[in-house]
C-alpha cells in the first residue's frame, strides 16, 4: 500500500509539473489543445460526480450551455467581466441542475436519462426562440479574453479543470463516499438507513453542474462567441460520458485519463479523417461497456497488480 501511495504521489507531482511547465514550450495550436483537454477534464470529471451518486444523466451539455449563455449574456447585456461571468454561469447552471434534480427526485434509471437528454434540446429551442434576449441562432460575439493570448487562458481553464477533480477526491475521502455509494447501489435501502437521499441528490446535481457551468462560462470568452448549436450540443454530452467511461467510472483518475486520451485521439481523427471522432466514441462506448467496464484505469490497475502483488491492508474495507 505504501508503495502504491508513493507511485500515485509521484504521478500527481509529475503531472502537476507538466501541466505548469509544458505550456511554456508550446505554440498556439498546442496551447489550444491543452485548453480543450482541460475543458473536457472539467466536463468529464463533473459528469462523473453525478454518476458517483448514482445519477446517470445524458444531458451534460445542458449545464455547459447554460453556463456559456449566462456568462455571454452577462458580458453582452451588462458588460460584466469574464471572471464574474464565469461565476454567474456556474451558479446559473447549479441552480438549473438543483431544479432538475428536485424535479427528477422520483425518477430513476431510464426516466432520468430521458429527462436530461430532452433537457438539452428543450433549452436549445428556448434559446433559439427568444432572439430578442439571446440573439437566437446568430449567437453572441464576445471580445477575446486576455487580448487573445493563449497562455493565461490555458491557466484559467486548468483551474476550472482541477476543481471538479479535487471535488471528486474530497467526495472519495469524506463520508459522502459512503453516502453516494449507498444511493448508487440501493436508494431505498439508503433512505431506510436515514440518509436524506433527496438532499444529497440535489447536492450532487448542483455540484456537478457548477463545474460544467464554470467551464461553459469561460469557453465562449475563449473562442469569442457562442451559438445555440455548439453550446447545447449533444456531442458535448456524449463526450462528457464516454471520457469517464473509457477512463474508468467512479474513479478520480478515470475522467482525467479519458479526457486527455480522447481529446487528443479525437483531434487526431478529426484532422486526419474529418468528422470521425464521434463515430469512434460511439464504438468505444459499446466496446468498453461490454468488455472492460472498469475502463483504462481498471486495466492499468490490474496490470500493475499482476506485476506487483499488493498486500491487503487489514481492517480496511475494500473501497472502490
Amino acid at each position, binding site marked *: 500500500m505504501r508503495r502504491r501511495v508513493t507511485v500515485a504521489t509521484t504521478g500527481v507531482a509529475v503531472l502537476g509539473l507538466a501541466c505548469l511547465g509544458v505550456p511554456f514550450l508550446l505554440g498556439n495550436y498546442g496551447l489550444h489543445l491543452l485548453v480543450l483537454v482541460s475543458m473536457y477534464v472539467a466536463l468529464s470529471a463533473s459528469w462523473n460526480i453525478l454518476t458517483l451518486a448514482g445519477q446517470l444523466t445524458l444531458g451534460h451539455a445542458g449545464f455547459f450551455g447554460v453556463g456559456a449563455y449566462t456568462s455571454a449574456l452577462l458580458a453582452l447585456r451588462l458588460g460584466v467581466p469574464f471572471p464574474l461571468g464565469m461565476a454567474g454561469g456556474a451558479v446559473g447552471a447549479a441552480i438549473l441542475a438543483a431544479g432538475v434534480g428536485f424535479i427528477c427526485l422520483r425518477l430513476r434509471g*431510464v426516466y432520468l436519462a430521458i429527462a436530461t437528454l430532452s433537457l438539452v434540446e428543450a433549452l436549445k429551442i428556448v434559446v433559439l426562440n427568444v432572439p430578442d434576449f439571446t440573439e437566437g441562432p446568430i449567437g453572441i460575439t464576445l471580445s477575446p479574453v486576455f487580448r487573445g493570448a493563449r497562455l493565461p487562458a490555458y491557466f484559467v481553464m486548468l483551474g476550472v479543470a482541477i476543481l471538479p477533480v479535487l471535488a471528486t477526491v474530497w467526495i472519495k475521502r469524506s463520508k459522502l463516499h459512503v453516502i453516494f455509494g449507498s444511493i448508487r447501489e440501493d436508494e431505498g435501502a439508503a433512505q431506510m438507513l436515514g440518509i436524506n437521499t433527496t438532499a444529497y441528490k440535489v447536492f450532487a446535481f448542483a455540484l456537478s453542474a457548477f463545474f460544467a457551468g464554470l467551464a461553459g462560462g469561460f469557453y465562449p470568452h475563449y473562442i469569442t462567441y457562442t451559438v445555440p448549436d455548439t453550446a447545447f450540443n449533444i456531442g458535448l454530452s456524449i463526450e462528457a460520458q464516454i471520457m469517464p467511461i473509457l477512463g474508468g467510472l467512479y474513479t478520480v483518475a478515470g475522467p482525467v485519463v479519458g479526457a486527455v486520451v480522447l481529446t487528443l485521439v479525437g483531434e487526431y481523427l478529426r484532422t486526419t479523417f474529418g468528422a470521425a471522432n*464521434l463515430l469512434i466514441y460511439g464504438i468505444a462506448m459499446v466496446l468498453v*461497456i461490454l468488455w472492460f467496464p472498469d475502463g483504462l484505469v481498471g486495466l492499468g490497475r490490474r496490470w500493475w497488480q499482476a506485476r506487483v502483488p499488493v498486500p491487503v491492508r487489514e481492517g480496511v474495507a475494500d473501497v472502490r
Partner: protein
Amino acid sequence: MSLALLAQATANGLSLAGLYALVSVGLTLVFGVMRILNFAHGEFVMLGAYASFWLFTLWGLDPLASLAVVLVLMTGLGALIQTTLVKRVLAAPHLNQILLTFGIAVTFQNLALLLWTGDLRAIKVWYSASSLTLGPVSLSLGRTFGIGLAMILTGLLYLLLFRTEYGRALRAVAQDPEAALVMGIPIQRVYILAMAIGAAYAGAAGVVASVSMFTYPLIGFLFGLKAFCVVILGGLGSVFGATVASLILGLVESFVGTFFAQGSSWAEAISFVILLLVLLLRPKGLFGVE
C-alpha cells in the same frame, strides 16, 4: 379559428401521430418485454429512411415497394443487435444498459453522417406533388399513405399481441419473465422477436418520413426524443398507451403549430413540456402499470 383550418390541422396532426405511433409502439414493446429502454431505437428510423432514399435513388424503387425490403432488413438488424449486443447487458445495471444502447445510437448516427454526409435528402416520387383533397382539407399523398400504413401496421401489431401464440408469449414475458420461463417460453427468442418488431416498425416510420419529409443523419435522434415523450406519456411498456399518446402529441403539435404566432418553432418544444409535466405529475404515464 375557422373550421376548415381546424380540419386541416387535424389531418396534419394525424399524419404526425401515425409516424409517432410507428416509432413508439416498438420502443414501448421492447421496454415492456425486456425492461430496457433502447436509446438506439430512433436510429432504426434513420436507417429505414436512408434505405428508402438509396433504394429509390440508385434503383428507382418506389418507397412503397422498398417498404417490404426495409421491413425485412430492419427485422434482421433488430435481431442482430439483440443477439450480439443487447443480450449481454440484460442482467447488467441500468447504467450499462443505457450507455450501451446510447453508444449504439451514437455509432449509427455518426456512421450515417460519415457515409452519407449531413445533407438533407428528399425523394421525388410520382405522388410527391399530388395530394388528396377532401372538402377544405388537403393532405399530400405521401402523408396519406403514412396514415394508412400506420393504421394497418398498428392494427397488425394488436392482432399479433392478442390473437396469436407469439403475442401471448410477448405479453407473458412482459408480465413476469421468470414465470414465463417456467412455463416453457423461450424468453431469449421472445426478446429477439420484440426487438425485431420494434426495429421493423421504426424502419417503416423511416420510409414514411423519407417521402413526407427530409432524410438526414439526425432524424433518428429527433424521432427518438419524440418517441421517448410518447412512451412516457402513454406509460412505459404499454402499447395501447403509446398509440393514444402518439395521437395526443401529434394533434397537440399540429394545433400549436397552426394556431399560435410563431407556433411552428415552438411546436418542437411541446413534447418536452409534456414530458416534463408527466414526469412531475404522473411518472407512470397515462396507462402505465409501474
